[in-house]
């Protein structure tokens, strides 16, 4: 059974009311959605909120998924819309100045993580988180629209046509925004390098 077929089977069972099937479906994608949310929001608390909203949206609209596209594509379309909703609802969402978990204390960074891997090797996990924090700090120079395009193109491998459809813009506009965002990131990386 292919990955998509497994998704389809889990979706069918979840629609029949199987909590177990729904949980398995969520576990297949929650890592991607959480890290997507973390890169966009810059902190684990807002990332959790966004991830929960995404999966609630997926649950409520699951009966509308026809299988015309991959489930992951459909899911990240919802994730994109939820991120846009959240950025409009929370004016302080993704503030550039406060982005970057590197400014958090070790305890603050680790307090949200309770899984066994953290318990076994907290230093490795902390190093990983701080490395990611540097990336989030660089992303912090972008507007949320630019960050969404970078996220969808670099991390989700969406096509420009898909991005254009999600953001209701032309594919050429999406390409221009993408390149503009890359230039800003380059500058920010040089600035960070100079500071370090």
């Amino acid at each position, binding site marked *: 059974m292919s990955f998509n077929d497994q998704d389809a089977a889990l979706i069918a069972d979840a629609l029949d009311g199987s909590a177990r099937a729904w949980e398995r479906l969520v576990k297949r994608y929650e*890592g991607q959605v*959480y890290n997507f949310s973390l890169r966009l929001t810059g902190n684990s608390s807002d990332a959790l909120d966004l991830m*929960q909203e995404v999966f609630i949206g997926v649950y409520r609209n699951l009966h509308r998924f026809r299988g015309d596209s991959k489930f992951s594509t459909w899911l990240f379309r919802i994730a994109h819309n939820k991120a846009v909703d959240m950025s409009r609802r929370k004016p302080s969402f993704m503030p550039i100045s406060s982005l970057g978990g590197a400014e958090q204390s070790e305890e603050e960074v680790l307090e949200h993580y309770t899984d066994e891997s953290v318990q076994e090797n907290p230093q490795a996990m902390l190093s990983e988180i701080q490395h990611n924090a540097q990336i989030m700090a660089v992303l912090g120079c972008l507007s949320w629209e630019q960050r969404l395009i970078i996220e969808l*193109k670099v991390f989700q491998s969406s096509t420009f046509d898909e991005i254009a459809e999600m953001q209701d813009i032309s594919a050429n506009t999406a390409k221009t925004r993408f390149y*503009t965002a890359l230039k800003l990131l380059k500058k920010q990386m040089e600035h960070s390098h100079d500071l370090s």
Partner: protein
Amino acid sequence: MTCHETANIVSAYFDESSSAQERKAAQLHLDSCSACSAALADSQAVGAHLRQWQDEAVPQWQRIPEQLHSKRRVQKPRFSFWGQWAPLAAAFMLALAVMFNVQVDLNSDGFSVAFGQSGGMSPDAVAAQLAQFEQAQRQAQAQTLQALSASIEERQVNSNARLLETVIEQLGDSTSRSIEQVMAYFEAQRQEDLQLMEASYQRLVDSDFQTVQSMQQLANYVQYQGGSLQ
């Protein structure tokens, strides 16, 4: 140095959906455009830096929405509110009917509901039975009073006679006038005692009569309640 094609060239490099023809055209442009080549190198560096992201573990969270929890725990009710409570209400009414021995009588006037062993008697029959009971009680009490009065009178007469004999023996030479005075005094005492005794019995009879009246009122109340259910 700038090139108006840079955005498209860089985007094409990042776009995996680009066709082979598009890639070949982009490569041809890059071979001849240093601006786009430099921009592409910078963009690749940025992309490489971003891709160093290491996926973080998902913190504990509630994966199953409340709606799905509710769906699992609570089955949708098959009946409406009244549909759910109707069997319980029916069972309660049946228990009450058994407890109070409710009897439903269907006749030409409709139906009547009665409680207890007297169920089925009409109000008139109850009143007639109570009247008979009252009459019998009164007769029995009058006979008892008459017999008791006669007994007491006889015992008092005997007692008075023995007292008189004793007094005569003690006095000896008492005159007939003195005896008559004593007899008159005793007779007056006897009459007074009889009146007091009769008054006491009358109060007793009246008390019984009040009891009967209370029963009558209770019967009327029960008839009223029974009638309101009809």
